[in-house]
């Protein structure tokens, strides 16, 4: 699996490259500024781009903007955005094109390399991975507005785990229920959110979006 890394701090860029190589990823490019990143993403067409939000030249959200720009040029290009802090605002912007293949994680999550590589693979496969911290913030609000208000507490829990990018099996394990029960909850969620049957991955993205929009 080919990845492009956009990270301005040498230590982190190098560490990421080493970690990913060790897990069998191929580093197509490792760049340190937003313009370079945009070029690398568009030219290299990696399976996934791993992007730091804050990059040169302005050291604000250049990385995020480069990633969004790349996705406009190459629709559905999977990007996993890393940051020292997470904002619902940025999560919305990343998910706004409803194409999936988006991840948004705190940099700390790199510590857990299995979960991290799993998240990369999930994003590469078109899934949506949101940081538990974003999801937690989502959980504290939105419960009063339609149509999310119609979800049962159990369904909401499942939706939160979906937003974190977990598979049905992982959700089942986490909630100590069977995978079948998870599928049932998922169907309930999709039904209540008026998501027509389609590709499961896409419906998961849309469910999370519905949650974000509430």
């Amino acid at each position: 699996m080919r990845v492009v890394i956009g990270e301005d701090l040498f230590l982190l860029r190098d560490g990421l490259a080493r970690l990913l190589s060790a897990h069998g990823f191929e580093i197509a490019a490792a760049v340190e500024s937003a313009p370079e990143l945009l070029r690398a993403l568009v030219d290299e067409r990696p399976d996934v781009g791993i992007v730091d939000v804050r990059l040169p030249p302005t050291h604000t959200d250049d990385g995020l903007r480069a990633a969004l720009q790349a996705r406009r040029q190459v629709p559905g290009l999977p990007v996993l955005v890393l940051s020292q802090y997470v904002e619902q605002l940025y999560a919305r912007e990343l998910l706004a094109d409803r194409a999936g293949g988006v991840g948004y994680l705190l940099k700390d999550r790199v510590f857990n390399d299995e979960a991290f590589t799993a998240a990369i693979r999930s994003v590469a496969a078109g899934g949506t991975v949101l940081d538990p911290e974003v999801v937690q913030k989502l959980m504290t609000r939105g419960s009063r507005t339609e149509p999310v208000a119609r979800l049962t507490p159990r369904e909401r829990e499942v939706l939160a785990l979906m937003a974190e990018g977990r598979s049905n099996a992982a959700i089942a394990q986490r909630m100590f229920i069977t995978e079948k029960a998870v599928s049932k909850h998922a169907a309930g969620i999709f039904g209540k959110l008026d998501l027509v049957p389609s590709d499961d991955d896409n419906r998961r993205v849309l469910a999370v979006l519905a949650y974000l929009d509430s």
Partner: protein
Amino acid sequence: MFLLILVVLGLACGAFALAVIHVDRVNAWLWALPQRLRGRGWGWLILPAAAMAAAMTGHVHALAVVELTIAGAMVAWAPRLAAKVVPYAVLGLAIEGLILARMYHRGFNNQVLYGVVLAGAGSWRTNLVLPETAIFFILGVWLLVRVRAPGAGAVRALAGRWLDPRRGGISPRQGLFLLPVVALTMQLLGPGNWFGFQSVDGLDAAGLDLLLATAALVLLFRSRVWAATLAAAGLLVVGGYGLLKAAYPAAVPGFSYGFADLTGPRIGPYWVMALEGFVLLGLGLWLVPQVTRQHLAPPADPELAARAQQLTQRVQTLTRTRSDAVDTAAAELRRIERNLHDGAQARLVALGMSLRAAERLFPTSPEAALALVSEAKENSARALTELRDLVRGIYPPVLADRGLADAIRSLALDTPLPAEVDVDLPGEIELPVAAAVYFSVAEALANVTKHAAARSVRIVLSYAAGTLRAEVTDDGAGGADPARGTGLAGVERRLATFDGILAVSSPPGGPTIVVIEVPCALSSAKTSSC
């Protein structure tokens, strides 16, 4: 007696011989004398004062010797005490001079050595007694203040009131010239001047002078400019009169003029008269342009006065808000320091210790080492979380990345209530103001979620006429008291640094509206693609 003179003469000769032998040393001693005397404060003045007091008695006798001995001993062994006594000794001399002058006025005519003046016996020098008295008086008062003798405080306070330049447009010292003018005028207009009387029965001229001097002082305190004007006019008239009288004694009526008295037995009062007239006229001429300038000065411009008042208030406000801002910044730094110290720093120390322990354990018990390593990992994750929270409190990253509008949107998203945001900003707000408004809105939102029992909240951000306005409206219970709690007070202080204000309207039953207004400049709109 002859023996005594012989002994004294012998001693004097011996001293002279010694002085000649050690001429260099004597010379050096004489040169150093002023320094040495000054080193003892002004106490040395007691010696001449005592000598003068002794001389006034006419002959050197036992009392004078005792007086001088005491004075010398004081200078030698109690210079501080001598310094404290000196002003009173000099003032005493002045009073003696007054009495002496009075006595001469009444016909006393004995020869007396007063200070350096050998008065009496029909000498013109008798006229110098009063000027010398005045000099002693001034010197006494000056010394009193200078050596801080008892009573100096009162003199200082009195002088301070007189000489305080803030008490009027013109220096009060100029108005003081009114006093001699009044005194002299009274003398000239008094019957003694017209008829050559020595004294006036029942109505003492000096007492009348004092009365008028007091009246002049009152005028001085009420209107300095008019006192000085009157003084200038008076000096011109009185001085001119003196010169005229001295030049043409026959053409101008009168017998006395200041210290000159044509009726007395003294010789040469005319040159005293001329000198007095000259000095007074000179003072008058010196005063006239200053007084004129005062009168011609444009009246205070009311607009200017209002502006001055405005500026004064502004300076007061700025002083207060600046000190608030400094306090707030210092408190903030302290909070950050403490957070870092107790949080991330401590965790990093623990991290290092865990890793070191793991390093030691690896060869013997790899499993225990592994446990330590994962503990270290936990610690580093926690340190990161704490740092993240801290950074958010110092300066929210979204604000840095995206500016105020998106930062407020992000704030709304993180609010547990449904929050509607309406932003109408034609440009970007400069960062310090943006941060202040951001934290103010954050505080208002926190209050809504904590206290208002609201279902939803609405934030409106707008900019008009150079003022940024943020409005946070909730549909809660209302009845919020902005005076309660420190949160909003802190916000108010923070905004005050930028001349911003905070207003809360919260009638019982709601809605509660928090309005924040800050005057600020707007930079051109951000050209970002997002």
